[in-house]
């Protein structure tokens, strides 16, 4: 310690000094802070503006979660070595906006499958598909050369105005749920695919919903170019009271209970109600998003078939829907071809991939429904596409066995992928011991077809129409007998239909020309006893 610690200072009088301020509000202090404050407020404000314009009334944190999830997924899928749309290249392609579509110049197809999904979820919930399985299915589609078409293209195809290449597919998602978009879109982005969302308008308008997509999100979907929309009704996806005791039913298939007036709806009121929803949901979507809405997906895949109190509903609903839309979508049934063809009618059918289907499973289902060329030899493998319309069916790879269930008198199966067959001779080797064996031709679906029915000493050429069965012609022939390896056949040539026994025509009739494939049926008045085995089936073009 030295003297330098102790400089001498004069003593000041504290009370003679001026009051001081303890803050500094000079310009070079205030200005930067004012700038920063304005900047921060502007940033926060625009954050909410962006959130609002992209995610609408979706809660903020949920929006952030979706945004992060989407981008992460997109990068993850792009780098995924299993991705058939080769990894990094597609990332760059997507980032720089170059379409990743390959120019597949294959032949055009006569039938297009449509897939129907609902939500794509993180963990199995018993009905919806998981993201992982969905991704597997989409990878498989891409790898097998399937390409998505737009709803517009599908529409043109169904109207017969536009050809689409082989392996064209339309992918749809019902309900307009957030989980139909956010897990799916990154996969579509990396694979260069697109889809259609069927919007429930009441869902869309649910303020703050974390389940349904908001208007802004739908608008963004449309702007991405990967999505189109259709109507899934405004009010048709919630349960409605259909009687005094309060049971609930479907909006589009049941008359409702009018609680205020304590009575059931009349038929006219039913018609007005469904017509109003069909029209209003379309016009609202069109006005909101400025896009044409020409298709409708029936809620629950029910256009009246599941009615509890109004058997006429199907007719009325289809009539009314047809007034508003070009196409009405239902889920594929056991009695219909799974692919859609021009001129098939107002209803288009959709395959609903199972939550547990692998990509391979999906491809097998698609290949079984793919249009089959003529001539054709059946091989009776489980993947061939035999649709068991009723009764029980087994396929061994060598033969097809068809039997009625214990309480029934018949069984029937049709061959998928044969919708537009025409002018052919189908010959089968069938074995049965009692009752009638039938070979079907001109099969529109399992309710509309022509058939040759063989029983002891008798052949009947009959037509199954919307109004029931009609016998067109019949003939007695002693040589016709049940037993092993009988040769039965049906020939359809223009307006002439003939039945063949051992390769020779035994009866003929004329009827309007009708396209369609083949099927097998068996009938026995003794309940549970109908049984036929088919060991060969060859269809040759005339």
């Amino acid at each position, binding site marked *: 310690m030295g003297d330098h610690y102790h400089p001498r200072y004069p003593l000041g009088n504290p009370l003679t000094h001026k*009051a*001081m301020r303890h803050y500094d509000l000079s310009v070079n202090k205030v200005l930067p802070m004012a700038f920063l404050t304005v900047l*921060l407020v502007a940033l*926060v404000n625009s*954050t909410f503006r962006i959130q609002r314009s992209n995610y609408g009334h979706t809660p*903020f944190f949920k929006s952030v979660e979706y945004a992060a999830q989407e981008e992460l997924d997109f990068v993850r899928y792009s780098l995924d070595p299993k991705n058939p749309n080769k990894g990094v290249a597609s990332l760059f392609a997507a980032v720089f906006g170059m379409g990743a579509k390959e120019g597949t110049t294959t032949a055009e197809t006569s039938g297009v499958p449509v897939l129907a999904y609902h939500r794509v979820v993180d963990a199995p919930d018993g009905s919806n598909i998981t993201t992982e399985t969905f991704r597997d299915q989409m990878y498989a589609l891409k790898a097998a050369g399937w390409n998505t078409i737009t709803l517009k293209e599908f529409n043109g195809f169904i109207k017969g105005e536009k050809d689409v290449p082989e392996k064209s597919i339309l992918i749809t998602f019902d309900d307009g749920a957030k989980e139909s978009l956010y897990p799916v879109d990154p996969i579509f982005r990396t694979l260069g695919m697109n889809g259609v969302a069927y919007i429930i308008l009441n869902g869309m308008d649910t303020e703050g919903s974390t389940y349904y997509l908001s208007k802004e999100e739908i608008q963004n979907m449309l702007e991405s170019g990967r999505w189109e929309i259709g109507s899934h009704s405004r009010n048709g996806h919630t349960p409605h009271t259909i009687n005094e005791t309060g049971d609930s039913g479907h909006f589009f298939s049941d008359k409702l209970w009018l609680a205020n007036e304590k009575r059931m709806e009349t038929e006219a009121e039913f018609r007005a109600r469904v017509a109003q929803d069909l029209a209003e949901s379309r016009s609202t979507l069109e006005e909101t998003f400025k896009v044409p809405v020409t298709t409708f997906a029936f809620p629950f895949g029910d256009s009246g078939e599941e009615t509890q109190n109004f058997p006429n509903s199907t007719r009325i609903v289809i009539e009314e829907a047809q007034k508003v839309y070009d196409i009405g979508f239902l889920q594929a049934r056991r009695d219909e071809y799974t692919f859609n063809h021009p001129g098939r009618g107002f209803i288009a059918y959709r395959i609903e991939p199972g939550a547990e289907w692998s990509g391979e499973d999906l491809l097998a289902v698609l290949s079984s429904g793919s249009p089959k060329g003529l001539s054709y030899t059946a091989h009776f493998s489980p993947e061939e596409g035999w649709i068991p319309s009723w009764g029980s069916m087994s396929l061994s790879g060598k033969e097809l066995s068809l039997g009625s269930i214990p309480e029934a008198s018949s069984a029937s199966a049709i061959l998928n992928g044969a919708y537009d067959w025409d002018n052919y001779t189908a010959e089968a080797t069938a074995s049965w011991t009692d009752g009638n064996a039938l070979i079907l031709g001109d099969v529109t679906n399992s309710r509309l077809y022509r058939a040759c029915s063989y029983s002891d000493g008798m052949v009947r050429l009959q037509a199954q129409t919307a109004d029931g069965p009609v016998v067109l012609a019949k003939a007695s022939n002693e040589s016709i007998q049940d037993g092993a390896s009988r040769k039965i056949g049906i020939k359809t040539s223009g307006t002439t239909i003939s039945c063949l026994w051992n390769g020779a025509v035994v009866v003929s009739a004329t009827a309007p020309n009708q396209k369609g494939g083949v099927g097998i049926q068996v009938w026995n008045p003794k309940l549970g006893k109908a049984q036929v085995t088919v060991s060969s089936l060859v269809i040759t073009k005339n």
Partner: protein
Amino acid sequence: MEKLTPLEQLKSTKETYLGKGIPWFFFFVIIYLILVLKAVTMKSLDNSPFFGFYSLLITVYILSRFLLAYFHKPAESDPNYRPSVSFVVPAKNEEDNIAETIRRFANVNYPADKIEVIAINDGSTDNTLQEMEKVAEEIRPYVRRVEVVNWTENRGKRHGMAEGVIRAQNDIIIFIDSDSFIDADCVTHLTKYFSDPRVGAVSGHTDVYNRDTNLLTQMQAIRYYIAFSVYKAAESVFGNVTCCPGCCSAYRREYVLPFLDKWLHQRFLGVECTFGDDRSLTNFIIQDYEAVYSHEAKAYTVVPDNFRKYVKQQQRWKKSWMRETFIASTFMWRKNPIAAFFFYSYVFLAFASPIVFFRAVLWIPMATGIPPMVYFVGLFLMLFLHGLYYRIQVGPRAWFLAIVNFWFNTVILMWQLPWAIITIRDTRWGTR
């Protein structure tokens, strides 16, 4: 400090810009995130005005601290104004630190004839007295006067402080804790504020001496730094620092004397007050005068290095905070309206925070099954903001872990206030 060549100066400036620019950027990113988070939660709290109000107020309060601290201006030193000072150090069983504490009084850049040292041995049972006497002889040539007062029986810190005030012959009393060490420029920067007659007390800036001992002391280092350089600086803008702490603060003797006796025998709820002496003294001052903060007057203090001691100390502080805040509430409304608004806001926030915590962390998760993510993220962001400020101002010293530690400790610290209310009359943890 050694001289730098212009090139080195330029380099070091560049490093400083880069070294600070990035954390500053993140500092404002955190503020942005906090604002977004708050705006979102405010919307969802529409139907519970109380919690919405809390959420809004705590954000305004904390951000206002940084804003006010930014506008805080230190006084300019007038070489013609050098009032005489008396260091007052009461000590009990402090043989390890007391010599160094006192030695530094002779080592200050201040006129020696204006320095007086009064050390009070408050009934120590160790060698504190011997250490005091030894160091008194050592410094005697470098100061005007040294006095060692020896009490064989312990009377308490407040009595020691009061004794120092009475025995002091100089204008400014500087209280230094027996485990605190001052910088050579400390006195100059404390006394310069007293040229304004309104100023009655000046708090120095105390940092943690044993910062690098463990995570707990690192955490306290951040707390100390922020409490002084942000919170006290913010209060100082209005001359309204609510506590000029005993570790290093200066008081104008002339203003203290009139209420010395009242302060010495302060009773609260019928019990003699044996802790929170500094906060209580400041409270007397700010009723009529100003109390300010000098960030240049630096001192260092030893903090508890184990959790048990730390919680006890915090509990003591919370009790005195309770008592003195109650007293301050009776007159604070007369002060500057902005200062008063923030004072009462803070009182509300302190009492409401355990309720908000209970609702966010226990009630809502139990009722809805939603984990309290937003609450904990919000809390973390706030602490992170403080941590970043420390990182910018002090340097990259284990600040992040300390913040994480702080985050966990918040849960414990928050419940100290209700506990302090329950045990307010229990004086067993009185200091010394």
